[in-house]
């Protein structure tokens, strides 16, 4: 850069700045090509000049040689004191050659318009005059005079001429050399300049590339952030569904527990008040029947479905009709709730007693805590199941590291969370193979299962068969979730993985479920395949094991 700065005589920083910011690439190209053309023509001219001065120098050398030859010829004739024909011819020839060279020199002189040769021509014509004079004297035979007067003058003039030629020659040699040096310098400059240009252009390009790369990186970062946000949103949506499911799953057993506990308390309070009357109200035989009832009640099956208990109650009412009670329906109801269904013969002593209603009620109160406790135990089981599922669901990898995930457990967790929706006449087939744990992000995988199972349940509209199977083969595991719902029409199958594509009404589906699932699977180097026709849709997930 400092070279460039010297050439442009601008402070480096400014030169750089102006080149970097303001000059587009084409401007730099145009400028440098102009400079290159100028350099080239200058170098060409310099070379031309060098060529010419070299030419002149050669001519001068030739002229010098020619001159000394001419001089020796002339001297020969002068010293001989006569001019024979041979000599005349030779002289003429030599002179002609000399004139030719001089003519050339003159032409150059005129072209270059430099007066450096002028003095040479003056000296030459002086010399020529002297020689001419001497030769004339020789031809007249005045040898003596020639020798006396002219010989000395000729020598002088010749020496002068010779030294002038020599000096001129030297000058042309020097000029040639300096021109060549200048041309070399020019070539070097041009080379440096082009190197600099290439450097600048390269710098600009790389700068631009770096800018582009930076921009792309920023855009990519934004996208990733947006995607993370989507995943987060989807997670929140999944959490919303989860909370809905969980509140049902938790509040139901809580309601049962609360009511059972207070029912038991009330029943026992009542029973304790009435118990002392037992001996007073019932005869030993009736008491026996009473305790038989209690024994049966504690062995009975209290939690049967309603249809069953209504049938049982109806049968009991028929049996009770034989006892001519005015409240047979009420007694039948109590007995049904106690789990009594069979033959009522063992109860006949009690039922024929005038205190039969009091006795059945007391038996009911004494045994209902048994039923209520069963309800409580069942409810506690139910809620611990959901808490366990939640714990699995919430166990997120805060470290962001992959960990060993048991996919079968993950699927079970999701099924538990969806329990309340799944019992709506959806038959579940679990077809789990013993698959190895895989390395992954457990909560994200759970999100995938949640989405697929949620979609399947939705597609079946609460009625159908959900088949979940896991397989292990060729270093991969396959999880497939199949439903018996309406299926995905062929013309939208390619769209379902698009973000925001949904066929659900506004507010019900975001259309992000499959999109996010796909992204999560990509993160796990996995993939998803679909197979769908009306009545059978299967999503298969493949994950490297």
């Amino acid at each position: 850069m400092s070279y460039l700065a010297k050439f442009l005589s601008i402070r480096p920083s400014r030169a750089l700045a102006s080149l970097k910011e303001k000059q587009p690439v084409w401007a730099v190209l145009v400028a440098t090509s102009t400079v290159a053309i100028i350099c080239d023509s200058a170098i060409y001219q310099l070379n031309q000049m060098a060529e010419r001065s070299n030419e002149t120098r050669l001519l001068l050398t030739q002229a010098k040689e020619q001159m000394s030859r001419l001089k020796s010829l002339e001297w020969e004739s002068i010293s001989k004191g006569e001019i024979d024909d041979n000599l005349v011819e030779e002289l003429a020839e030599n002179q002609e050659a000399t004139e030719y060279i001089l003519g050339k020199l003159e032409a150059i002189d005129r072209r270059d318009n430099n007066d450096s040769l002028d003095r040479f021509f003056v000296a030459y014509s002086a010399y020529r005059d002297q020689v001419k004079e001497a030769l004339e004297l020789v031809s007249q035979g005045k040898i003596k005079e020639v020798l006396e007067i002219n010989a000395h003058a000729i020598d002088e003039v010749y020496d002068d001429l010779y030294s002038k030629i020599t000096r001129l020659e030297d000058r042309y040699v020097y000029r040639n050399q300096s021109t060549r040096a200048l041309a070399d310098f020019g070539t070097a400059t041009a080379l440096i300049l082009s190197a600099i240009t290439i450097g600048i252009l390269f710098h600009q390009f790389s700068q631009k590339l770096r800018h582009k790369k930076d921009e792309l990186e920023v855009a990519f970062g934004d996208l990733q952030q947006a995607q993370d946000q989507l995943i987060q949103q989807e997670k929140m949506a999944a959490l919303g569904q989860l909370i809905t499911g969980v509140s049902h799953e938790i509040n139901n057993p809580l309601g049962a527990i609360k009511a059972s506990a207070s029912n038991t308390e009330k029943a026992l309070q009542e029973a304790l008040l009435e118990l002392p009357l037992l001996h007073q109200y019932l005869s030993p035989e009736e008491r026996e029947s009473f305790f038989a009832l209690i024994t049966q009640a504690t062995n009975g099956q209290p939690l049967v479905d309603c249809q069953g208990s209504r049938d049982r109650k109806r049968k009991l009412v028929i049996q009770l009709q034989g006892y001519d009670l005015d409240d047979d329906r009420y007694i039948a109801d109590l007995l049904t709730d106690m789990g009594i269904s069979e033959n009522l013969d063992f109860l006949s002593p009690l039922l024929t007693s005038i205190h039969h209603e009091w006795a059945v009620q007391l038996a009911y109160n004494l045994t209902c805590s048994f039923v209520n406790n069963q309800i409580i135990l069942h409810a506690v089981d139910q809620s611990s199941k959901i808490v366990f599922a939640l714990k699995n669901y919430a166990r997120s990898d805060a470290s962001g590291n992959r960990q060993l995930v048991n996919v079968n457990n993950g699927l079970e967790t999701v099924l538990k969370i969806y329990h309340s929706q799944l019992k709506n006449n959806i038959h579940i087939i679990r077809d789990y193979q013993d698959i190895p744990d895989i390395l992954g992000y457990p909560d994200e995988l759970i999100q995938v299962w949640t989405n697929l199972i949620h979609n399947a349940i939705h597609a079946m509209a609460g009625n159908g068969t959900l088949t979940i199977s896991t397989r292990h083969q060729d270093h991969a595991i396959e999880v497939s979730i199949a439903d018996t719902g309406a299926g995905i029409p062929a013309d939208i199958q390619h769209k379902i993985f698009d973000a925001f594509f949904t066929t659900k009404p506004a507010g019900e589906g975001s259309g992000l479920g499959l999109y996010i699932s796909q992204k999560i699977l990509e993160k796990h180097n996995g993939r998803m395949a679909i197979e769908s026709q009306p009545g059978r849709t299967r999503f298969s997930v493949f994950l490297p094991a």
Partner: protein
Amino acid sequence: MPNAAILCVDDEVSILKVLKEQLKRCFGRQYIYEVAQSAAEAWVVIDELEQEEIKILVIVSDWLMPHIRGDEFLAQVHQRFPKIIKVMLTGQADEAAIAYAYQQANLYACIHKPWEEQELQQVIRTALG
């Protein structure tokens, strides 16, 4: 013999059991207490009671149930028996469903699980006047 009934609908047997016991303990032998595990079953019970000429005064229904949800079921009941008092007892129901039930079923009250026994008794007692 009472000739009026209270019907409870919930898909969980244990809820039905404790609910019935609570109502029975509160209102004693004034009423007949019937339970059903789904809307479809509830219709069977309703028909049976109608045949026996027993009038249903109150229906207490869960919301999240198989096939037909509580709000829808109560709306259907309302079309046939506008006089029956409808109460929803639910562990979870979205706002829209509750609003729908108030509008389409003339819902009397919505009680949330786990419920207070007194609240339930109070609601039904005032409803029955």
